[in-house]
Structure formats: structure tokens, C-alpha cells
């Protein structure tokens, strides 16, 4: 028990905070505790969760991927165009994932081969990808995506759970396995923790970073597919500003912006907390501007805990002696 707590204390804390938030919302409006509200929360964490787990891979290596909102839009547009032209939906999904991987790999190329700062490199591709989205569509949305594609993600299981919720859970499980059970996972943490040391111990830093950016692109592509299925249309302006929420979810879940620390489970709970907050605020009918204020405060508070962790441990140790 104690061992589990020490290993996952950040995740448990975030989960507790989520539960407490839920209790607060339930007190303010008992309707919050309906099964349908729970379903809504899980549905609404999907996009942000997928984007967050993707961006977490890049943050783990000490990088960042600011272009995810734009990759998201491009994938949506590409797949929408394929589907509207009558392509087999599963083939279209593969193309969508491939687009995400290619765009992610290009970020990886900029960061590793050209040795650009990840922030600047992906700031550049953020504008580049958005521009491509505008050029391809001429600004007009791609509409009338057939149900054969939409039902793959948007269909419902008994109980009202949509398939895309399952898709998200599967992506998180894959991410968790990669990070905690494989050598690639160890390398990702090692590169983010101390790049020089990792290089000296024989880690292929370049390949590891490529993997991180490709993973980010792939997760973003899945998010783009879910968005397309859910809306039935794609537009060049989709996903503007989504990267900030994704970073927030990862940060709340305990991902260190300096790299080397963070888990898929933590990011999951970070995204869950933000979704609870988002839905809860609507349920108790709070002015949406307050949502920004509260989200901001929670991010600040979460990073403060991160900072305090060392201090608190030292403080507790001192007290025990006295």
C-alpha cells in the first residue's frame, strides 16, 4: 500500500483533487452526479487527453510540441477529404495516422538534425501547418463526412459510452506500457533527465527524440480523427489554442516542463480534472470567463506542489527529529 502510494503519489493527489472538485459541484448542483454527466465528462476529456498524452512525450524529453493544434486540423482535413471522396474509412484512418506521423517526424527532424530549440521549431511548424491547412482548403470547411467513418469513433456501446472514449483509454494504456515497461520508455526519461549522461551511456538520443515527436504526431492524429467523427466536418481553424490545454493537463498530472518526469496515468488524471472543471462550471452555470481564472489557478497550484515536494519532504524530516 505504502509502496503504491510512494510510486503514484502525484497521480493519487490529482485524483483526490478531482474527486473533491466533483463533490463541490455535486453540492452546488446535485444533477452533477448523474450517469449522463459522468459520460459527458469522459467524452469531453477525450480530445484534450489525446493531445496531452502526445505532447507529454515531447515534454518528457525536455522538448515541447506547439504545433499539435495545427496537426490536429490538417489530419481532420486530410481524412475528411478522403472520406468525402468515397475512400474506405479504415484506409482513411491509416492515412490520417500517417499524416500525423509525418508531421511529427518533421518536427523531430527540426529538433534533432537541425538542432533547433523545440519551442522555436514547433512555433515555426505551428504557423507552417496552419498555413497548409488554409491553403489546402482555401478556408472553406470540408463537410458531409459519411456516417461509415463517423460511426467507427462516434458509435455508442450499451450504456451510452462512445467508442472514442475506449480509443482514448487504449492510447493511454499503450503510452503507459511504452513508458513503464519498455527500454524506449527508459530512454525517453533518460534523455529528458540528463541528455549528456544519456548520450554517454549509449542512448541513441536522436532516435529517442524522433520517437517522442512521432508519438506526439500520432496521438494528435487520433484526436483529429475523433474530432472529425464527432463533428462530421473539418475546418482549417480547428484546434486553435488547444496546445495550451494539453500542456496544462500534462503539467497538472505531474509532467515536469524540464523533462524527465511525468506519467501517462498522471496526464490522464490531469485531463480528467480539467474536464470535470469544464463540465462542472457549465452545470452550475458559472460565467465561462471564470473557467479560465480557475483553470489558471489550478495549473499554478499544481506546479507549486511540484516545487514544494522537495521542501515538504525536508520539512517533514526535520519535524520528525524534533
Amino acid at each position, binding site marked *: 500500500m505504502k509502496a503504491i502510494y510512494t510510486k503514484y503519489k502525484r497521480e493519487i*493527489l490529482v485524483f*483526490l*483533487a478531482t474527486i*473533491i*472538485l466533483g463533490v*463541490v459541484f455535486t453540492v*452546488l448542483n446535485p*444533477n452533477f452526479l*448523474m450517469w*449522463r*454527466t459522468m*459520460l*459527458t465528462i469522459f*467524452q*469531453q476529456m477525450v*480530445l484534450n487527453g489525446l493531445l496531452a498524452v502526445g505532447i507529454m512525450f515531447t515534454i518528457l524529453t525536455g522538448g515541447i510540441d506547439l504545433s499539435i493544434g495545427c496537426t490536429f486540423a490538417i489530419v481532420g482535413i486530410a481524412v475528411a477529404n478522403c472520406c468525402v471522396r468515397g475512400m474506405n474509412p479504415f484506409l482513411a484512418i491509416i492515412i490520417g495516422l500517417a499524416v500525423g506521423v509525418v508531421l511529427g517526424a518533421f518536427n523531430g527532424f527540426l529538433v534533432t538534425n537541425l538542432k533547433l530549440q523545440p519551442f522555436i521549431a514547433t512555433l515555426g511548424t505551428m504557423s507552417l501547418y496552419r498555413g497548409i491547412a*488554409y491553403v489546402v482548403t*482555401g*478556408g*472553406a*470547411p470540408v*463537410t458531409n463526412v459519411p456516417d461509415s467513418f463517423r460511426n467507427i469513433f*462516434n458509435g455508442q456501446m450499451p450504456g451510452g459510452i462512445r467508442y472514442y472514449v475506449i480509443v482514448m483509454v487504449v492510447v493511454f494504456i499503450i503510452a503507459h506500457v511504452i513508458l513503464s515497461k519498455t527500454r524506449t520508455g527508459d530512454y525517453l526519461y533518460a534523455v529528458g533527465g540528463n541528455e549528456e549522461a544519456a548520450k554517454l551511456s549509449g542512448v541513441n538520443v536522436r532516435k529517442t527524440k524522433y520517437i517522442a515527436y512521432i508519438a506526439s504526431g500520432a496521438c494528435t492524429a487520433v484526436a483529429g480523427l475523433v*474530432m472529425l467523427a*464527432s*463533428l*462530421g*466536418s473539418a*475546418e*482549417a*481553424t*480547428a484546434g*486553435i*489554442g488547444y496546445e495550451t490545454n494539453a500542456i496544462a493537463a500534462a503539467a497538472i498530472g505531474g509532467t515536469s516542463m524540464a523533462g524527465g518526469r511525468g506519467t501517462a496515468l498522471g496526464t490522464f488524471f490531469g485531463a480528467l480534472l480539467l474536464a470535470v472543471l*469544464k*463540465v462542472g*462550471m*457549465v*452545470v*452550475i*452555470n*458559472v*460565467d*465561462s*470567463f*471564470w473557467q479560465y*481564472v*480557475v483553470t489558471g*489557478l*489550478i495549473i499554478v*497550484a499544481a506546479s507549486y*506542489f511540484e516545487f514544494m515536494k522537495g521542501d*515538504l519532504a525536508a520539512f*517533514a524530516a526535520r519535524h520528525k527529529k524534533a
Partner: protein
Amino acid sequence: MKKKVLAVLLATAMVFTLTACGSNGGSSNSKNDGGSSSSQTEESNEEPAGDAEESTDGTEEEPAEDAGSTGEFNPDQAEDAMTIEEVREKNGVEVPVDSGKKLGVVMKSLSNEFWRTLQEGYEQAAADTGLSIDIQATTDEGDETGQQTMTEALTTQGVDALLMSPISDSNLTSAVESANDADVLTVNVNDGLIAEANHYVGPNAYQNGQLAAEWISGKLGDEGQVAIVVGMAKAFAARERTAGFKDWVSDNNSKLEIVAEQNADWDRQKAKELANTWITQYPDLKAIFCNNDDMALGVVEAVEESNADILVVGVDGIGEAYESIRAGKLDATVDSFPFYMAQVAVECTLRSLAGQELPSAVATPQALIDSENVDTDAAEIINWTAPTYTK
């Protein structure tokens, strides 16, 4: 361990306090809406330079919404506002065209269908009048300084009039001041707003919300729960459309009950998620009014998924909204016909250049489109007669 749990509890307490503040803030705002003082209204009705004296009398009319910002120019509430028909009646139908005049147009991003259609309207006007109209647009809707540079460049090139649709309410202020100094006629077309411009030409966003409220009330037999999806509040149109809707409900003692109002940043996905939450929370929700079509189309998806019987009304009249109405999904949209708006703007500019006296604000045609008139020709719906240009 204990300390951390305590810290989490404290953080939650903080959130709780904040949300409580939030609800308070909301209700005090609505109080403001109801009984805004006339002094505030007076301030918020500052007119552009040319028509200053007309604005000083009478300040009551509809309560000024979002009265917080003082000195705000509000064309929807302008005392001397006219429709284009009234302008034609007052000054005669003939529009004098001086072939030596040059017009400059500054618009927002052409990636948006609305602005592309507006451009077509300008091109139509250029063809009809035989004047050269220099049309400039920014690459995206965030390039505020780029738009300022374009405006200044047009002034230096010696245009006689500038027709501008600024990205924000402030990014063209200095460019307009230098244009005014250079005796260039400045016309503000659609939003954002330029308080310093000589004339405003655009749809009445306030009336736009009223049209939507009236339609919903008619369809529902004037009772039932209604929710509003608002756009980014920095946009004048978002505030006015919402205010027009709400005021219609309160002014007509309507039994429509506005149960929720939230911002979705003009984003389709966010609007859909909002609607999803509302549909679970308000099983009796009967209608959702959205500040634009993009958000309305997102809400439509949420309504379709839940099989709920909810009316969805948008604003803008984009092509996709028309398609959706034809497909029986979206219920209505309020179209402000940018193609005709541009032609009205050029007509007003030419009248003003010829020395005719024009009001500070000219309201351009708009109409509610639903399944009944979705296939009717736009010119017929708004009863459009092309301007009579005399050269």
C-alpha cells in the same frame, strides 16, 4: 502526507470560493443590464465627429449592455441610424459617381467565407460604378498590425475614401486618425468598430439577436427553456447579438426562460461540448441560440446525437448553414448578406463623397432564413434594388 491532503483541501476551498464569486458576478451583471443609468448610456453613445450634435438629445432607448466600458461607440444604438432605403428616400435614389475617385478597402482574412462574399460585393460595385477599388485583406484574423500597415499605405497612395472592417476595435485607430487628417473619408464596414470613422455601415447586431428571439418564440408558442452560446466577448457582435436576444425576451414579457449562457470562443467543437452538457442538464431545453453559424453547426451535431427536440438558430448565413437548413438539421440562421452589405457601403461612400449628408450609422439588410425561405433568392428576401449610379 497529512499536509499535502490539507493543501489539496485548501486549494479546493479556493476554487469553491471563486465559483461562488463567479455566480455573484453573473447576477450583478444582469442587474446592470436591467437598469443601466442614463449617464452610462450617454457615454456609451459617443458619435463619430461629424454628427456630434445629434447625439446629445435623448439617451434612454434600450439599456446599454456591458456598460462597463465607457465611451464606447455603439452603432446599434445610434440615434440617427437609418436603413439604406431611408437614405435613398432622403437623398434621392440617384448615386452620383465621380469617375476620378479612388476607393480603398481593408478587410479581414479571406479564409473566412463571410469576407470572401463581402469582397465579391465590392467587386460587383466596382463593376457597376466603373471605379477602381483597391481591396486588401490580411492573411489571418489575428494580424492586427499588418492591417494597420495596409490602411496607412492606402492613405499614402491617395485614396479618397477608406472602407474598413478592422480586426479589433482599436487596431486601426491611429491609421484612421491619420486618414482623417489627410481628408480621406473613413467608413467602418461591419465589425470591429472604429469610433473615429465618419460613418458606420453594417448590420444591426442587436436587431439580429431580436430576430432570432422572435422566431424561436413563435416556433415554441412563446414558452420553454432556451440557452445561448456566445462568441468571444471581445467581439462587439457577440455582445450585441446576445443582448438583443435577451432584451427581446424581457421587453416582450416572453415566457421563454433563458436557463444558461456560456462562451464557446466561436469554436465548433467547444460549442458542441457545451450543448452536450446542457442537454444532459436541462432535459426540457427547447432551443439554443448561437452567436454564429460555426458554433450552431457544432450544437446541431450534439442535438442530432441525443435525438433531442431542440431548435438551433445561428447567425451569419454561411453556405454550410444553408446546406444544413436544407438537410433539416439547423433550424434557422440570421443572414446579413455581405454581398449586398459591400454594395451598400460603396453606395454610402459615394453619396458622402458627393456631399450628401449621411447618418453616423447605416443599417444594412438582414433577414432570418429557415426552411421556408432557404431556397428563395436573397435579393427577393431583402427586397433588394440595385443602386442607380449616375456618372
